[in-house]
């Protein structure tokens, strides 16, 4: 399962997660962009769903560990979110690879799929990460979404509900953007590299 090209792909995607996640964390953008590598890894290995899931999950976990040690010590606590994103990407988002790679680009079909897969990934990520955000950070992570949590708390919601509702507000937008960027990188990746990754 883990041939040399796939091992290199996992490391490349983990490096991509780390690099983009660090830039966003350091310049305090109100988005995460730290799972593009995970989604891209699943797309590049598709349609073999289980292999794609294993490799994408490893890419997410490795980047979380390294970023946890070097940039943001709290990232490893979201390891389950990485696994959930890998699962959705490998089993659902990867179903759109024919449209994602179609030449000439089919804009309408691509946009519809990117938004629907992005929203689904976002909902799953929000549900999985809500308990961590609620318990570890008390619902406030230092990002702009904390104000949404504060609003829901002010309206009388419980902490867990407020965190979940805040996640459901912000994550689908962030994940749609991440799926879009992953799809664009997938389109740009040379077929030669994809052939290497698919070879047994």
């Amino acid at each position: 399962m883990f041939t040399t090209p796939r091992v290199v792909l996992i490391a490349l995607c983990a490096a991509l997660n780390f690099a983009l996640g660090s830039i966003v964390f350091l310049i305090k953008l109100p988005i995460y962009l730290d799972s593009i590598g995970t989604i891209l890894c699943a797309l590049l290995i598709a349609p073999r769903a289980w292999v794609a899931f294993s490799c994408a999950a490893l890419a997410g976990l490795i980047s979380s560990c390294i970023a946890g040690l070097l940039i943001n010590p709290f990232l490893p606590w979201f390891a389950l979110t990485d696994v959930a994103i890998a699962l959705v990407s490998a089993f659902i988002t990867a179903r759109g690879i024919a449209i994602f790679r179609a030449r000439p680009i089919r804009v309408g079909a691509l946009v519809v799929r990117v938004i629907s897969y992005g929203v689904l990934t976002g909902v799953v990520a929000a549900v999985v990460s809500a308990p961590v955000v609620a318990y570890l950070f008390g619902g406030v992570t230092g990002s702009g979404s904390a104000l949404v949590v504060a609003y829901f708390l002010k309206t009388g919601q419980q902490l867990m509900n407020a965190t979940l509702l805040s996640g459901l507000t912000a994550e689908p937008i962030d994940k749609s953007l991440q799926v879009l960027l992953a799809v664009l990188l997938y389109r740009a990746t040379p077929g030669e590299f994809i052939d290497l990754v698919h070879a047994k």
Partner: protein
Amino acid sequence: MQSESRSTGLPMSPTGAVLLGTVITIGAIFSLRPGSVLALMLEVGLFAALTLKRRAAAAAGYAMMVVLPLFAFMAAVWVIVVGRPPTIGAEIAHMPRTAALVYVAVICARLFIVIFIVRVTLLQFSEMTPLQFVGRLALPLLIKKLLVLTLSLIETLAHAVDRSRTALITSGLMTSRFSLRNFLHVWILIQTAWLTVISIAIARIRDKWPIENTMARLDDVLGRFAVRFTSIDAAAALIAVVGVAVAWSLG
């Protein structure tokens, strides 16, 4: 690398230090009351002073630098905007803002401990290269290989970003300072950097690595590091478990 951590007071192995850090982190995360968090902070501070001596202050300073802005932000949200903690006991029901401040302080103290112990663990082995550190961890070979390759590719990616950025500035698509043009063209930078690293990866996988036998040599190097779990590691882990239990009982 004769000694595992020459610059520190305790000759722990990386595996032992990571295990101890994990025990402390779990202890901190599940400490719910101010008393237990405070006790755990004292214990971790003592451990850092013993292992890192004067450099413990640098680790504490780094953790403070991360946590203080978060504390200010959390305090603004919980104390000023919400005006109460998520749950409030009858004994402090008459001063909800004070209770909110205590709630924020406990959360931030826990986060401080987590950041501090990660920093202490890293500083203990600051004289090791990443390859030496990863090689000595008790992990499956595949994971060690992935960690080493990722660290190497992060450098490659950083160089690719630098080169691409310079080219885009020269061509007038981006500027060297913060600008709207940078924001609009950041996608071209990401795509160019990705294509650069992919080209490098294809060349390495197909030509360079098979000739140099790089992957087999990497397996060999990673397999040769002694993965030791010393009696000092075991004692430190045990003391950490006892320390966490004592801290919890004080809550």
